[in-house]
């Protein structure tokens, strides 16, 4: 190493955040402290009763009094946040393992693909038995089951996006990290995690939006003889249904609106704005997302001060990891190849054994005609979904294109559509169901729209995004050439939004399968409505504690979802990407 070079003065004042806390309190501090304290109090309040015995739930039964709604909303939100924390941990572990280890990847990625297609609400009933046995007689067990259900609705796509990011870290960054000999720990936190962050945050937010639905569905659980009503919005609505109280349903809807608005303000926007600095490529001319909550936190000296010890420990862990950094080892290729073969064989054997187990379990009680019946039910549900997606397409594509090509309209409608996608549609079910009961309508037809009530918005906001992304030069060109009317739709608008539409339709269709489990069976007081379909089959089997039929129903539904994804959506998506993606 060369000796120290002569150098002028090293500047003492650093233009970074550290100096901020020397400057005394500001109004931002007041804001920030209030924000942080509010969150802490909320968490403490909501987690107070976790260790109480189950019987405590019966001592303090749920009440439809609106006074209780803030507490219920808080608990529901807490479940969501805990599940999110687990999902993040899972993502970092699972996706990293899959991206770094070829053999693990071989198993983990197809598994993730299947897990994404399994109807979460279906296996809620199976997991609850397991979690209740972990903490027998305590609220904690039921809480775990609910949290697990929420976790399963969040984790898969987060893990998948993070895995994709890890696989696509730009080669020059990887080379720079190697050339400067970063330790694996440093490499993960300095290079890989930041690179994947914008995608991960975006998927996290989509997960949360999607999982409000499952929070609500997983709080009021009844399996066979066990019925648990965890205090929360879902149980509140279940009680409202049992007591036929439309007023209470209205209160619940109102509360949920407020909760989602707060979530948008305090979590969604700050996180998206924060993650923007990790974006690798910046599109020119697109203003970066902003959030005043994030600004308050960033400008507050106190927050910076509170974060300092954590940051210091963090930095130290990175440096420590550097000292023990090992050199890259190269393995012999031949040994590896044999190992790969053995590994593949082992995976195949285990998979076959698992399949055999499932088949045996199901066939113990059920016969081939049962399987046939399940398939017929699956076809009925499929028909519903096809028709509903078709109707939603006819309605939302023209509207979405119009909105997307009008800047002012986009600015208003886009957040509303995203908001509606986050709103748990199952809170609205009682309104529809009570109407069906009151007018004596055919449940086979009129229960169907419930399936798409919450998921149709994905079509709308994706189409809006697609239409808004049509380059202005292309639009000017159409005006210049007098391309108008149907010709314009056929040659410009529809091809341009097609890839976006496909993305939206995939999400909407996938969500509808899941929703069918809660939508095809509905009750209002003592009235029970049931449509002919696979969702109703799974829901009924769950209520009866008939695990054989639950497993069969889930297996058939997963098969339908996987087959449709492979045979229809994936080719369509690839075609759309290849042919119609602009730019």
């Amino acid at each position, binding site marked *: 190493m*060369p000796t120290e070079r002569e150098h002028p003065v090293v500047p003492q004042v*650093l233009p970074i955040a550290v100096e901020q806390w020397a400057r005394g309190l500001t109004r931002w501090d007041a804001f920030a402290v209030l924000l942080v304290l509010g969150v802490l109090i909320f968490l403490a309040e909501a987690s107070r009763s976790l260790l109480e015995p189950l019987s405590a739930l019966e001592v303090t039964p749920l009440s439809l009094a609106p006074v209780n709604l803030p507490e219920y909303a808080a608990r529901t939100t807490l479940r969501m946040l805990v599940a999110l924390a687990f999902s993040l941990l899972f993502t970092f572990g699972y996706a990293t393992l899959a991206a770094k280890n070829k053999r693990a990847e071989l198993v983990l990625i197809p598994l993730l693909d299947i897990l994404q297609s399994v109807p979460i609400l279906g296996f809620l009933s199976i997991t609850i038995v397991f979690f209740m046995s972990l903490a027998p007689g305590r609220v904690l067990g039921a809480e775990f089951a609910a949290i697990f259900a929420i976790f399963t609705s969040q984790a898969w796509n987060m893990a998948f996006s993070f895995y994709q990011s890890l696989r696509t870290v730009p080669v020059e960054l990887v080379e720079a990290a190697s*050339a400067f*000999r970063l*330790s694996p720990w440093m490499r993960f936190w300095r290079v890989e995690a930041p690179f994947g962050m914008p995608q991960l945050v975006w998927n996290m937010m989509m997960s949360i939006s999607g999982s409000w639905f499952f929070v609500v569905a997983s709080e009021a659980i009844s399996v066979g003889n066990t019925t648990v009503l965890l205090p929360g919005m879902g149980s509140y609505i279940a009680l409202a249904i049992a007591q036929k109280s439309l007023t209470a349903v209205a209160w619940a809807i109102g509360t949920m609106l407020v909760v989602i608005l707060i979530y948008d303000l305090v979590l969604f926007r700050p996180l998206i704005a924060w993650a923007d600095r990790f974006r690798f490529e910046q599109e020119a001319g697109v203003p970066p997302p902003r959030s005043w909550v994030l600004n308050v936190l960033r400008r507050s000296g106190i927050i910076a001060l509170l974060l300092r010890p954590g940051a210091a420990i963090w930095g130290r862990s990175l440096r420590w990891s550097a000292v023990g950094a090992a050199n890259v080892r190269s393995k012999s290729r031949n040994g590896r190849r044999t190992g790969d073969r053995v590994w593949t064989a082992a995976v195949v054997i285990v998979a076959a054994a698992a399949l055999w187990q499932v088949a045996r379990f199901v066939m113990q009680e059920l016969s081939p005609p049962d399987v046939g019946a399940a398939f017929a039910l699956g076809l009925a549900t499929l028909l519903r979904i096809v028709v509903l997606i078709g109707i939603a397409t006819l309605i939302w594509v023209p509207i979405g294109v119009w909105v997307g090509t009008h800047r002012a309209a986009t600015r208003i409608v886009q957040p509303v559509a995203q908001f509606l996608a986050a709103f748990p549609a199952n809170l609205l079910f009682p309104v529809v169901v009570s109407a069906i009961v009151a007018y004596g309508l055919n449940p086979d037809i009129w229960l169907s729209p419930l399936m798409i009530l919450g998921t149709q918005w994905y079509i709308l906001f994706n189409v809006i995004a697609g239409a808004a992304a049509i380059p202005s030069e292309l639009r000017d060109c159409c005006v210049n050439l007098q391309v108008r009317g149907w010709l314009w739709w056929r040659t410009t608008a529809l091809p341009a939004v097609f890839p976006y539409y496909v993305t939206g339709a995939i999400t909407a269709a996938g969500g509808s399968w899941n929703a069918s489990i809660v939508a095809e069976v509905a009750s209002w007081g003592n009235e029970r409505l049931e449509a002919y379909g696979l969702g109703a089959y799974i829901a009924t089997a769950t209520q009866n504690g008939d695990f054989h039929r639950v497993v069969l129903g889930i297996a058939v539904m997963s098969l339908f979802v996987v087959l449709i994804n492979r045979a229809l959506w994936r080719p369509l998506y690839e075609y759309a990407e290849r042919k119609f993606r602009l730019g």
Partner: protein
Amino acid sequence: METSVAPLLQVQSVRQAFPKPDGSQLLVLDDLNLSLAQGEIVGLLGRSGSGKSTLLRLIAGLARPSAGSITYLGSPVVAPAPGIAMVFQSFALFPWMTVLKNVQLGLEALGLPEDEIRRRALSAIDLIGLDGYESAYPRELSGGMRQRVGFARALVVHPNILLMDEPFSALDVLTAENLRTDFLDLWSEGRLPIKGVILVTHNIEEAVLMCDRILVFSTNPGHIVDEIRVELPQPRNRLDPRFRDLVERIYVVMTARPAGSRRGAPVGERARAIGLDAVLPRVSANLLSGLIEAVAGDPYHGRADLPVIASSLHMEVDELFPVAESLQLLRLVDIEGGDIQLTDLGKQFADASLDDRKKLFQRLLLAHVPLAAHIRRILQERSSHRAPKSRFRDELEDYMDEEVAEQTLRAVIGWGRFAEAFAYDDQSETFSLENPT
């Protein structure tokens, strides 16, 4: 600068090959020898695909050679060595870190104490002229400032050897010159904490401007064809006749054997040698016509000095050579001794109307590009007059790797379309003889 006896770095008989899908080997570098002495800037000059960047990555320890050895200060390089730092073509800055954090990264990886990290980072930032930008994010900076961060990040670890992978090629002309001059000033004044530099470039003038020794690379497989010493004192003047002579000499070297021994052979032998295994560069028909028009017009009138026409067209070697060679392949020009000259056919092409140009181009394409003739023949033989692209891709992949095969097919599709020799539908990936009429 004094040259000590022991070289900093020694590369001996290095060979790099990658396995192809069919199990055979694709040779990228063959029998490479190179040494870097103290106080020396060595340039690796060649066109893309000549393996110079591959060699740099081997030296950086980012990959291991298939055979041969790389020794740094007496010990073999098997992983990124401390004391060898790299500057990247695309800067490779971490967009989520400030300038300061980016520069500190290499020091953090060394596990140094925090105050030393900061002190050294700030002094490197100061040295490279980034004062005041410490808290900026890379996206806020211009290309030139970004590459300064790249330099500071490499220098801060006090490396013995600095590897530079086309560090100025992503910058505009003025910025690149400014950065080169600043770097050379610091180097000449001995203010850089480095003992030797290896610079990869495809810019001939840049190599002559900066290097003490230039190793000229050729392709198929990558190997060194010539070593040129630059004995001009720094700072060098681009207009100095000796400077121009060196540039001219390198042009001659690079055009004499433009793409390996196969293509470098005289025309008669070449025609026989080129079969389906010829790699075609992706050069549009517009560029081909454009260069012919440029050479035919004022002030060249059919014969031009390559360095002169390159600089007047603002084309780098990497851009100009593929065009010139494609024209040579089609017998529209001759390239000799660093000059490009229109053949009679070339002159005819220059004077022709668009329709006649297309007819001439079709004739030459089918006569001199075996792949084009092959495609045309297959299409004529088949009763449907259609053939899938995969058919030809498979054939090509017997001779070249997937990516190159795709590039070659893309090139022949472009030329075939211009010549109206055949049509191609990208949706169904099929060739046909039907042109919409």
